[in-house]
């Protein structure tokens, strides 16, 4: 008898295993499969998109080359999958723009729409199997090679033999499980986490004119008089794709901070939730235009900007980015300025010379410990400072696409 609860996984062997279905993992899996590799993408949550869907990050950055002024034409930094996904999102009504914010061009998107578009693209990609609700829990390796992966879902453990593996987990989880070399910045230097929630029912003009200044005045007064927790001082509001949708992002200090510790993550999630509800309750009572506001969505997880970085054959540095350094045959281009958010001193942008994009070498996407281990997204091989540029979704899509192609090319 084959009871449903003891069914085994049909896939026993795969050419390419992609761990993590964030922006990088989606791009990696689609490009590996399109290159002809039998590809398996595993994602622990219920939706693809990672931070850009499950943590409610709602703006795609790093898609377009920097421009000195609006008169210059807008150009995709990476033409392939990043452009394809952006255009599919716009077509589906899940993104509106691009829009210019200060000196930068960005594409605001709906997190849930990104997940839906990713479902559609992956479903239509031959050679690709996606498993949601599935966790990589262990890796079996020999000298310099990863041989098989242990996957777990709903009380089942499966073993899948792999030819190559792409760590698109954001936290270099596959690397850590395999015993590959990785780095992590000290706790006080890590980019801070944030809790994003959606607000509906506010008046369309709730953020118009000097309203943000009035909100700043209101919230600081409430914190000073202990009517709101101090964490509320980290909140910023922004309109979503539609004018009657507002995103609130609370940057959290979260000390002592450790993005890979479940104790710390539990504290961050609970704090984000508590402060979100405090803020909305206070705004309803005191802020003009927020009388009927309510929380329309909370994230499936708090937003993590930085944690482990896999150590590769090469390492992208801050100087590479600031000088817009070129490499022969770049695997991907990164063009977002360094955006450091190590403390509550607000975002600090440092722009590259002449707004030049930097070439990321494929060696930054290859583990120095295992020959068949690749990495894509926010945990590629780079310094802590460089991560402040390459973590944006546009660049994650590009490194994902490049890693997917490279992993498919080493088929035995």
């Amino acid at each position, binding site marked *: 008898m084959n009871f449903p609860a003891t069914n085994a996984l049909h896939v026993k062997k795969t050419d390419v295993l992609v761990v993590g279905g964030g922006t990088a993992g989606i791009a990696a899996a689609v490009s590996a499969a399109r290159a002809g590799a039998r590809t398996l993408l595993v994602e622990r949550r219920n939706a693809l998109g990672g931070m850009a869907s499950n943590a409610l990050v709602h703006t795609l950055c790093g898609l377009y080359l920097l421009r000195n002024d609006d008169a210059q034409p807008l150009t995709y930094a990476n033409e392939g999958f990043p452009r394809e996904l952006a255009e599919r999102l716009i077509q589906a009504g899940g993104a509106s723009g691009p829009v210019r914010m200060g000196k930068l061009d960005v594409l605001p998107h709906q997190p849930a729409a990104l997940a839906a578009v990713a479902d559609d693209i992956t479903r239509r990609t031959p050679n690709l199997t996606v498993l949601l609700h599935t966790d990589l829990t262990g890796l079996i390796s020999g000298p310099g090679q990863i041989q098989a992966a242990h996957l777990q879902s709903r009380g089942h453990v499966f073993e899948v033999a792999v030819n190559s593996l792409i760590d698109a987990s954001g936290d270099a989880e596959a690397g850590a499980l395999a015993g590959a070399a990785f780095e992590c910045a000290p706790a006080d230097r890590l980019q801070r986490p944030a809790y994003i929630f959606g607000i509906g029912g506010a008046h369309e003009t709730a953020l118009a004119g000097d309203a943000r200044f009035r909100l700043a005045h209101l919230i*600081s007064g409430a914190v000073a008089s202990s009517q709101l927790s101090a964490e509320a001082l980290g909140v910023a509001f922004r309109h979503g794709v539609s004018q009657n949708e507002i995103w609130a992002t609370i940057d959290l200090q979260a000390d002592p901070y450790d993005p890979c510790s479940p104790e710390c993550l539990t504290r961050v999630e609970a704090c984000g939730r508590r402060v979100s509800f405090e803020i909305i309750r206070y705004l309803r009572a005191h802020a003009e235009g927020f009388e009927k506001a309510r929380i329309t969505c909370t994230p499936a997880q708090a937003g993590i900007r930085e944690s482990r970085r896999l150590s590769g054959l090469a390492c992208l540095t801050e100087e590479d980015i600031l000088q817009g350094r070129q490499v022969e045959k770049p695997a991907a281009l990164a063009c977002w300025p360094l955006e450091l958010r190590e403390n509550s001193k607000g975002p600090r942008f440092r722009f590259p010379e002449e707004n030049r994009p930097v070439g990321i070498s494929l060696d930054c996407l290859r583990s120095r410990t295992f020959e068949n281990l690749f990495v894509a997204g926010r945990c590629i091989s780079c310094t802590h400072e460089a991560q402040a540029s390459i973590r944006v979704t546009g660049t994650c899509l590009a490194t994902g696409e490049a890693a997917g192609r490279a992993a498919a090319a080493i088929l035995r």
Partner: protein
Amino acid sequence: MAEIPDAIAKKEAKLLSILSDDILELEPDFRTTDDLFEAGLDSMAIMRLLIHVETAFGCRLPVSQVNRENFSTVQKIAALIPAE
């Protein structure tokens, strides 16, 4: 009575040090007439600045004074703070 220039300069210096110590990453040669929004001042930074001003100067600025124009330079913010 008009404020004496020395008192104004002191107030501006105190404000500038609050801004660079706790609120923004300012270049060492940042001046009291330089644009704070260019330097990264946003509504989140203003919230924290208001709390620091309240602690350091013992005054809470009224909401009607908190706007883009009044907060564009250290000099303009200092002018909102009553003489000690």
